């Protein structure tokens, strides 16, 4: 029984990241920010009183292009913002939409809050599970999908609801799952 937001990634990814805790900071994985990423982060910094405030924005900027946040990305962001990498790590591990492990090309966020629970979340989750052969917190072997739980999506009138990447879908009946997932290759 795990109470935390399930870790993202399949067994392979979990194993790969075991030795990668921030204790190993100093290793850079040869990670470099692109010029575009760097300038977007610097632009973000201008919106707040100090650079630290851009840390979540910076993580999102990098993740948008790379899919997830590697150790090297944590260090590179800490260099740009001029704050300790342990602080960036603290932020990266706190927020559920920042992934510290590789995820699939498409991330499915399934709402498991009360209204969706009442309108069929369990059946929907099980249908996705059996279609893809993964549970919440896991990634398919072909790296196509990762399935995660999410708080009420503000679409309770359309429950059970889910998001795939930036698209909101609801109500999604178990019978709709197959065709819906087809749209994400």
């Amino acid at each position, binding site marked *: 029984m795990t109470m935390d937001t399930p870790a993202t990634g399949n067994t392979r990814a979990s194993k790969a990241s075991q030795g990668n805790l921030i204790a190993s900071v100093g290793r850079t994985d040869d990670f470099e920010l692109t010029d575009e990423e760097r300038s977007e982060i610097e632009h973000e910094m201008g919106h707040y009183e100090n650079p630290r405030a851009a840390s979540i924005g910076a993580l999102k900027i990098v993740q948008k292009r790379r899919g997830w946040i590697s150790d090297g990305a944590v260090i590179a962001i800490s260099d740009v913002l001029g704050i300790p990498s342990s602080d960036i790590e*603290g932020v990266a591990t706190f927020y559920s939409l920042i992934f510290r492990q590789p995820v699939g090309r498409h991330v499915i966020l399934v709402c498991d809050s009360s209204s969706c629970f009442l309108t069929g979340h369990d059946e929907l989750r099980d249908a996705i599970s059996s279609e893809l052969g993964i549970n919440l917190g896991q990634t398919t072997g072909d790296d196509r999908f990762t399935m995660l739980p999410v708080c009420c999506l503000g679409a309770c009138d359309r429950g059970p609801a889910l998001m795939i990447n930036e698209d909101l879908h609801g109500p999604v009946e178990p019978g709709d799952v197959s065709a819906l997932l087809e749209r994400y290759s």
Partner: protein
Amino acid sequence: MTSHLFSTSTNGETHPLTWRLREDRGYVDLAEFQQKDGYEAVRITLRDLSPDDLIENMKTANLRGRGGGGFSAGVKWSLTARGDDHPRGYIVCNADEMEPGTFKDRMLMEEIPHLLIEGMILAGYANNARMGYIFLRGEYVLAAERIERALSEAREAGILGSKVCGSDFDFDIFLHTGAGRYICGEETALINSLEGRRANPRSKPPFPGQSGAWGKPTVVNNVETLCNVPAIALHGGEWYQALSGGRSDDGGTKIFGVSGRVKRPGLVELPMGVTGAELLDMAGGMRDGLELKTWLPGGGSTGFLLPEHLELPLEFGAIGKAGSRLGTGLMTVVAHNQSVVSLTRNLEEFFARESCGWCTPCRDGLPWSVKLLRAIERGEGEDGDIDMLISLAHDIGPGKTFCAHAPGAAMPLETAIKHFRHEFEAGIRHPAREAHAEPIPVGSV
């Protein structure tokens, strides 16, 4: 794809939040917003009213915070540190909407973000803020697009930036999008998150109005709260207060809504004090073959109510007296065939997962309650488990934890046991009773 509205009106004097919505429910752009009186309140207020006048109006309006806490917005504003001894601070719009069963702010931001911007400019003027942030949850992608579009339209038209609408007041707004976690909606956790930190709540005092974002006076208000401000500034606090027409002392209208096992879930703007029965009716009643068992009046952190409570006015006082909270005012409707134990387990799993982990009663108590609830759900509860749940709910209740997250979790737990104790009892196996089915020989104990 947008939320169904039970009824609509184009009368600005009765439906200040929704009268400007388009029939096709698309985005109300700047031109259309201005055609419908938009930004008039800003123009008139900056020209004719002092910040204190506006705050007085807000107090008279008795607009109570729509983010779930119900604190008077006018009173909050009157406590903000202002004046020459204080730096200009921030207005932060709480657009983190994640309360289970709540889908009202999404609709306002997707369809009419200019109303929010207008409310924030007015809040900025009243509270001597230099800038506003909209703290929007990351998943609200369409709302983010629409807000950005509205912000740039407003900047281009001189409504935001230096010299707002030609006045001496400078104010701009920046959209900040979050990265998940329910706790970000707690106002001091939200400020930490805005500053780029982990979203642990801060201790109060100091209250944000004294020292908030980057140590500056900061006013945090919910999206819907801020969307009410333009009409109050335009028509006055007394007009607003009277909108609820004797049904409630709480002023104005509110976006109510219904989700769960009803025929037609949706939203509607109605005066404070409307009843749950009226709303349920508008939602077409229960789905065929289902009967109402229980309902949550305003999100996952409010207490269960019974069918007999449907006649109560939906306002902070009456719902509080019935042992629940109005919360966000969006009903979650539960049918007769739903196990309350399972639903409570689902709610407590949510709160356990979303605990920020800062203080022990919440961090450890909530997972414990989940463990007990799961056992009871499987019919494997032990004697004493129900009392343990009651005692856990008590230990995470108001005043015992660092923020209101845990008391919010306690409320559905406590009220579920209060109203449906028999369902919990049915999940307890009775090894003690079975073992003692034979008479106990005298002297053996």
